[in-house]
């Protein structure tokens, strides 16, 4: 490499390239080498064991993505031992919700020990920003986002209003004692 200062102060640098040998000049072996890399990746990434592949692309929906344990997915409403809704309509979740996507109407329950329950509980999933504050705010472990399912795409806006019964159908029993341990 040599550099020579010209009058116009332009630095000209001459690159000395390695001379290709005959085999390289025919391109054939190099072509085969390149194809070998492509084919190796092709077979590695199309093997049935998802974990051994190099890519993160999945053949959705045939192959489901494995989400981490604390993934915040589809909301669900937890149930009491007798299958009724755990929620007591305290509206802590709808108050804390930064997207204003939870709508609750409280009603008087016939059972005096329950007293208050949500007659309407609607989550507008199009508005939801998946922040998980509703789960943190809930004093009775009634709302969770641990279903492990992501929100499916909606064809119409109306479909995104998830009502109480749908949210309860994904629910299950909670370890927490309803009403607190001393209740």
């Amino acid at each position: 490499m040599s550099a020579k200062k010209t009058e116009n102060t332009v630095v000209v640098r001459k690159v000395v390239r390695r001379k290709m040998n005959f085999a390289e000049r025919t391109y054939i072996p190099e072509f085969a080498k390149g194809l070998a890399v492509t084919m190796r990746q092709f077979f590695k990434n199309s093997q049935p064991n998802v974990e051994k592949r190099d890519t993160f692309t999945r053949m959705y929906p045939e192959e489901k993505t494995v989400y981490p344990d604390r993934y915040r997915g589809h909301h669900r409403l937890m149930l009491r031992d007798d299958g009724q809704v755990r929620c007591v309509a305290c509206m802590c979740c709808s108050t804390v919700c930064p997207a204003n996507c939870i709508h609750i109407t409280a009603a008087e329950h016939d059972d005096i020990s329950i007293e208050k329950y949500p007659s309407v509980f609607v989550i507008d999933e199009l508005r939801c920003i998946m922040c998980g504050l509703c789960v943190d705010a809930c004093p009775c472990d009634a709302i969770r986002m641990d279903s492990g399912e992501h929100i499916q795409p909606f064809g119409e806006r109306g479909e995104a209003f998830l009502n109480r019964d749908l949210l309860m159908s994904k629910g299950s029993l909670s370890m927490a004692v309803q009403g607190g341990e001393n209740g």
Partner: protein
Amino acid sequence: MAKAIIDGTEIEVDKGTSILRAAADAGHEIPHFCYHPALSSPANCRMCLVEVEGMPKLMPSCYTQVSDNMVVHTKSERVIKAQKAVLEFILINHPVDCPICDQAGECKLQDYYIDYDTQDSRLRSQKQNKVKAHAIGPEVVYDGERCILCTRCIRFCEEVTETAELTVVERGDRAEIRTFPGKSLDNDYSVCVTDICPVGALTARDFRFKTRVWLLTSTESVCTGCSQGCNIHLDHFRNEAQRYRPRFNAEVNDYWMCDSGRLSYKELHADRLLAPVINGAEANWYEVCRNTANKLTKAVEAEKNIAFVVSPQASCEDLLIAKRFTDEVLKTDSLYLGGKAAGKADGFLRQADNNPNRRGMEAVFQDRAFKPFSDLIEEIKSQKVDVLYMMGSHVPVDADSRAEFLNALSNVELFILQTPTQGDLSEMSNISLPSCTHAEKSGTFVNFDGIAQVFQQAFAPKDGALADGEILTRIAKRMDVDFGYKNLSEIQDTMFNIPEPPPAEVAEETQTEPSAE
């Protein structure tokens, strides 16, 4: 006068003042449950204990009077220990069901726990079970487990309403508030007990589970149920009034208001007229003002008989515009008295006159004579009225006369109605114009006692509604009369502007609530 030192602050108070009030004046808050400024002090909650130098035991500050050279400590170690003990004692059987309790957010026990206690429960035994959601009266629900037995409600019924329905039954940790046998908490002021209840033991049936109090926005307003004009907090959420709550004013309503007035917030949203209507078809304001103005101009030029019904339900500001409208635009002096029919006075707050602003109307219209509404019915019947302009859809007559009035309306050539609500009257009218309720505008009412009280706008007008004065101003402008008011304060400056001594003494807009409550 007695001089005392409270937490190092020297203060001079009248003889007989309790330490609690003196401390509040000196700027030191003493927590209390059973003490209420309008009720007697039983000193049973023990939350307000303070240390007085020279006295061996802690003293209840709501009951102990300040004496000369008294030295009081409200934040000493002994006092703090006592406050924690009292709160722990109260919380032994308290269910701590704040998530389902309507009082959560405005609960004294919640506030004091955070301010004075914040220790975990040491109780490991079962809590006492008591009565839940007991209908203690038609408007009030009682929860025995939440009750801390401060007996404010009992003293309210004994001392304020003097009906004495409530008492404590049982003893010790089984004690509960109950009505006397055969009685029910059904006096006309019963919901006031839910305001004075420091916890969620007494809740109003109407407000129960409706919304959470921390979501509400509160606006200072005046109740329109009768001419007493009780000062209220208008609590609203998402452009809808949720409840009325009395606001302290020693000259008008003290801390109280009646149940019917409290429930009158429902009228704000019932059967609202949402858009101007011309002959049954909805129109926009531009169209309807032009149409009304054309018709009225023709009527004025043809010197037809124009009758104007003035409503004592409207605010002074709107009435001033109405006065100028009748003088300068309609050029008529046949004014009739509208508003609601008279009810019954109960000798406490409820007045017989159901219109909140009759004194204000008289003050604004000064020497103008109003004819009674019955005269209007007669004159319509004998076809002496060609054009009828009515403010508000209330008529101060009984049902028979009202039916008579509705039948006679076909004799009127042009009937213009300005009303917040739709009903048979708005259907009979040629033009109906949607007006605001008092929650949707600011203004002034003068109560039966001559006290002018300002109310503030709580939320935006429903759909197309406009304030009465705004509607009249727009129509007048179309008829080439400009009243020249730019804003509400310009109207307020001139509405009582008369040379003689003012008929209404303008009281302070709002009284500050004593910090002891």
